[in-house]
């Protein structure tokens, strides 16, 4: 923005002096300007001019935190990236395609926080070497876990998740023997209930033995603040242990996945909930009985259990419950009424939750930020009809609520703070989408998976309206909708310019023309963003011709592509490898995982070489 009166003086000045931004003193350029930028902008900066390229690479090396969990780098990329960083303190790494040696090589002496995700190619020897060489690290498992724990006496946070293999259920058996005293945050999955009970008693008792003074709440004796476990069964005995040993717990997250309906006395009852009310400092409570293995429920908890729990735990800000088949509106309503600071409320598989429990709270002054009501079949659109216009709701998840219909969307569209909306399996039609398009909700993530009555017309209404959604939508899931065809994809490509993640899984009417639409010129002429994640699983209308459009130079920024169960795989692995050529950041998934392979990586046949 140059003032026109001084433009002539400016031209003269440019010839006289070297006043270009890229000739600033390097300390100024690098430390004050470039090091405040994010990685992506630095990448653009390094393509601007020679001096800026040098400055950008120096700025990159100053970063102390590196998060590569969004995609799975291969060995070549790792050896290219890590040597440029000299003082990394925090590393998050997706290890899906890495072997032991690459991981141990990147660990430098400064590393304070380490997150290794999706370690299917790593052996437990990695864990031992981390424990012996470095003293301030979190994470890992089995026989080498003990060695790790002995080596990390300052450990504060430990999180280990083992997926996909059944015979590791007993792997945390004697973990309490080695766990460092200073641990504040502990997350283990899966762990057997009996092992968990002895662990919890040890966490409590150890404090008593060390100090002979009466225990007072603010002493530093009670260190554990957050406990998160996935168990085989949640029982009263476990809750009694927690209430006795860890009365000053801040966050409790328990999930169980029983193989059969638990029977008394090995189940959670009202007595357990009553004892939990003595943990008065709890701000986050999660009690979920998952349907992952069988459709099982907490059949021994009713409304009274929650009344008793809420007498003590009034500071709750986040409540997540699942599998409550007998608790009625009175119980759920009491949670909303008693916890005045409640920000996150999630209820799964609640057979008796109806509109009544929610309508009153949502209509009044409610500070809810996240509301997730998953597979609650009694819910209809009525619960949200009278929602207060000053609502601060940001996330609304109604997946699996089959009776929620278009009327809900007319109320939702007035929520000015909503950024995530999930309506999978709801009874939404094109008219509902028209409501969304007129509203001013800045929705960035929208999931309409399985909303079978939506058609191309609905997509057009959604994205061509005058509302904000066409500018803010970045993630869209329209899987399982037969009515979406090439025309719908064309609308998406031309109108949803901020879209970076798209899932059209199971859309049988989509053909090769759609893939071509997604790379059409009209999108990029209007500054449309490049797609990063694309899920084409089960799109049986696609043929092997699409392989051409999926290769470089198209889809330049693609990080994840799902092609399971399509005809794209019929030409064999060699043809698929062609897609990955020139794009080292791309992960190709043939196994039908959801976007990002977050929950399916353990079943991959082979990590893509």
């Amino acid at each position, binding site marked *: 923005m140059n003032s026109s009166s001084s433009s002539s003086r400016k031209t003269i000045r440019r010839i006289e002096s070297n006043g270009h931004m890229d000739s600033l*003193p390097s300390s100024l350029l690098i430390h004050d300007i470039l090091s405040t930028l994010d990685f992506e902008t630095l990448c653009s900066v390094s393509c601007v001019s020679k001096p800026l390229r040098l400055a950008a690479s120096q700025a990159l090396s100053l970063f102390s935190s590196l998060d590569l969990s969004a995609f799975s780098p291969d060995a070549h990329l790792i050896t290219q990236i890590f040597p440029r960083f000299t003082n990394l303190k925090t590393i998050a790494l997706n290890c899906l395609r890495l072997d032991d040696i690459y991981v141990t090589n990147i660990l430098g002496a400064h590393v304070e926080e380490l997150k290794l995700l999706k370690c299917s190619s790593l052996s437990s020897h990695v864990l031992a070497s981390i424990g012996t060489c470095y003293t301030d690290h979190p994470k890992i498992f089995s026989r080498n876990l003990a060695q790790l724990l002995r080596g990390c006496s300052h450990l504060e946070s430990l999180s280990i998740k083992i997926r996909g293999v059944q015979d590791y259920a007993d792997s945390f058996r004697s973990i309490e023997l080695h766990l460092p005293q200073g641990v504040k945050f502990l997350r283990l999955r899966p762990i057997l209930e009996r092992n968990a009970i002895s662990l919890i008693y040890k966490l409590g008792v150890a404090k008593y033995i060390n100090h002979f003074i009466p225990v007072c709440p603010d002493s530093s004796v009670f260190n554990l603040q957050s406990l998160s476990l996935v168990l085989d069964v949640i029982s009263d005995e476990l809750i009694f242990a927690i209430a006795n040993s860890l009365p000053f717990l801040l966050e409790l997250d328990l999930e169980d996945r029983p193989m059969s309906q638990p029977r008394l006395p090995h189940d959670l009852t009202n007595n357990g909930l009553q004892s939990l009310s003595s943990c008065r400092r709890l701000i986050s409570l999660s009690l979920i009985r998952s349907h992952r293995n069988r459709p099982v429920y907490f059949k021994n908890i009713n409304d009274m259990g929650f009344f008793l729990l809420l007498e003590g735990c009034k500071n709750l800000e986040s409540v997540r419950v699942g599998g409550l088949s007998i608790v009625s509106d009175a119980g759920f309503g009491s949670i909303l009424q008693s916890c005045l600071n409640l920000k996150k409320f999630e209820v799964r598989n609640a057979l008796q939750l109806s509109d009544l429990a929610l309508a009153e709270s949502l209509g009044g002054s409610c500070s809810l930020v996240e509301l997730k009501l998953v597979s609650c079949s009694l819910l209809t659109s009525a619960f949200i009809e009278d929602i207060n216009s000053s609502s601060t709701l940001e996330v609304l998840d109604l997946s699996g609520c089959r009776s929620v219909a278009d009327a809900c969307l007319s109320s939702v569209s007035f929520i000015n703070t909503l950024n995530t909306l999930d309506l999978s399996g709801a009874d939404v039609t094109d008219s509902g989408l028209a409501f969304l398009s007129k509203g001013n909700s800045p929705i960035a993530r929208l999931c309409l998976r399985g909303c079978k009555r939506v058609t191309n017309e609905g997509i057009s209404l959604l994205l061509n309206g005058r509302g904000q959604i066409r500018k803010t939508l970045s993630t869209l899931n329209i899987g399982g909708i037969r009515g979406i065809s090439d025309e719908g994809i064309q609308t998406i490509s031309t109108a949803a310019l901020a879209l970076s993640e798209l899932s059209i899984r199971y859309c049988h009417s989509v053909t090769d023309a759609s893939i071509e639409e997604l790379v059409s010129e009209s999108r990029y002429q209007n500054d449309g963003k490049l797609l990063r994640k694309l899920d084409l699983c089960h799109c049986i209308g696609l043929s092997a011709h699409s392989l051409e459009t999926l290769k470089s130079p198209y889809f330049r920024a693609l990080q994840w592509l799902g092609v399971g169960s399509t005809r794209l795989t019929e030409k064999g692995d060699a043809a698929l490898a062609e897609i990955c050529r020139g794009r080292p950041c791309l992960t190709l998934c043939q196994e039908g995982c959801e976007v990002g392979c977050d929950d399916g990586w353990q079943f991959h046949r082979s990590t893509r070489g």
Partner: protein
Amino acid sequence: MKKLKFIGNPLLQSREKINMSSDKKWLTLKTTEDNEEFVVEESVAIMSNVIKNMVEDGCASSVIPVPRVKGNAMGKIIEFCKKHTEESDEKVLKEFDAEFLNLGPDALYDLMVSANFLEIKVLLDSVTTKVADMIKGKSSEEIRNILKIENDLSAEEIEESRRENCWTRQE
């Protein structure tokens, strides 16, 4: 040609060092590049660490020469410092800064270099933040246009740079 600028009471025309009252000292800053002189209150001038050190060490005589800073930039810097010493309300200052920094890349460059030389942290932070915000999230072509930088990279170098940094395009 010598030009004299008075920042302060516009009614005063004298060229001597002015003592308005017993507790306000005035300094004359002279930019040696283009010989412009500026009369400012000491409390405003010592926002610059360099000048502050000179005053405290007793090296500041009646006229302080300031090399490497052009008259235009000096004027703007003094305007900034004056506003920041007078005003303490954060909101007002923020609005002032936003309006003040509504400049082209050349002017911002001059301001940055001068503020860096004179060690005026507040101004330097504001300008660097402004420049960083101008280029955040932009593509390399847009950055070139905004900062008026010439492209001296060949197509191969650009492609190589992109390939090296492809991993930075994360969520």
